[in-house]
């Protein structure tokens, strides 16, 4: 069974204090790993897709990296508007292509 574990569950940062969110996964062959951002009362917003170990993608203050067992979402010099819940999901290489989501990390950036 595919599993995704995100840590920490919640993270409070001061504005400008860089940190990383973790997504550990077990899947029978990874087809893709997805990061989403979700604001309260809204649907998940797509951020990145990673396909193979060693791959990195960046968008503004966010950088996502991937190894064979986990992915990190690095946040550099965060701002209050980066406050949101960040979701990680994996798609297996075989079977129904269903996405398996983690429970998310709630990030709060304090001014």
């Amino acid at each position, binding site marked *: 069974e595919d599993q995704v574990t995100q840590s920490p569950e919640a993270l409070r940062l001061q504005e400008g204090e860089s940190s990383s969110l973790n997504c550990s996964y077990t899947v029978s062959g990874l*087809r893709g790993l997805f990061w989403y951002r979700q604001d309260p009362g809204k649907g998940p917003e797509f951020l990145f897709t990673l396909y193979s170990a060693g791959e990195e993608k960046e968008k503004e203050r966010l950088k996502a990296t991937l190894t064979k067992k986990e992915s990190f979402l690095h946040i550099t010099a965060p701002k209050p508007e980066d406050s949101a819940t960040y979701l990680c999901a994996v798609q297996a290489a075989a079977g129904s*292509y269903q996405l398996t989501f983690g429970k998310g990390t709630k990030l709060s950036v304090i001014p």
Partner: protein
Amino acid sequence: DAGITQSPRHKVTETGTPVTLRCHQTENHRYMYWYRQDPGHGLRLIHYSYGVKDTDKGEVSDGYSVSRSKTEDFLLTLESATSSQTSVYFCAISRDRASQETQYFGPGTRLLVL
């Protein structure tokens, strides 16, 4: 934002009543999905559609049915709502189910079953 709308956005209903949620897309994407999101759980797939009149079950399909009579519309029906179906429901779309195809999500429907 991907062209996805959901209706209603909020609904309160009573146990035992039928409920239908609608997802409408303007992207002409082939795949559509229904998820539920509950505290303490990740998003979980209920049903998905890979074309008009083509649907399949997801992880948590019991108590739900779906229909897709047009490319742009995907309906989720709770035949007889129960309190355990109180949740936030999200529709998603993707161009294809193959690898490297991102799913884009709608704004959600908050359903309360009393």
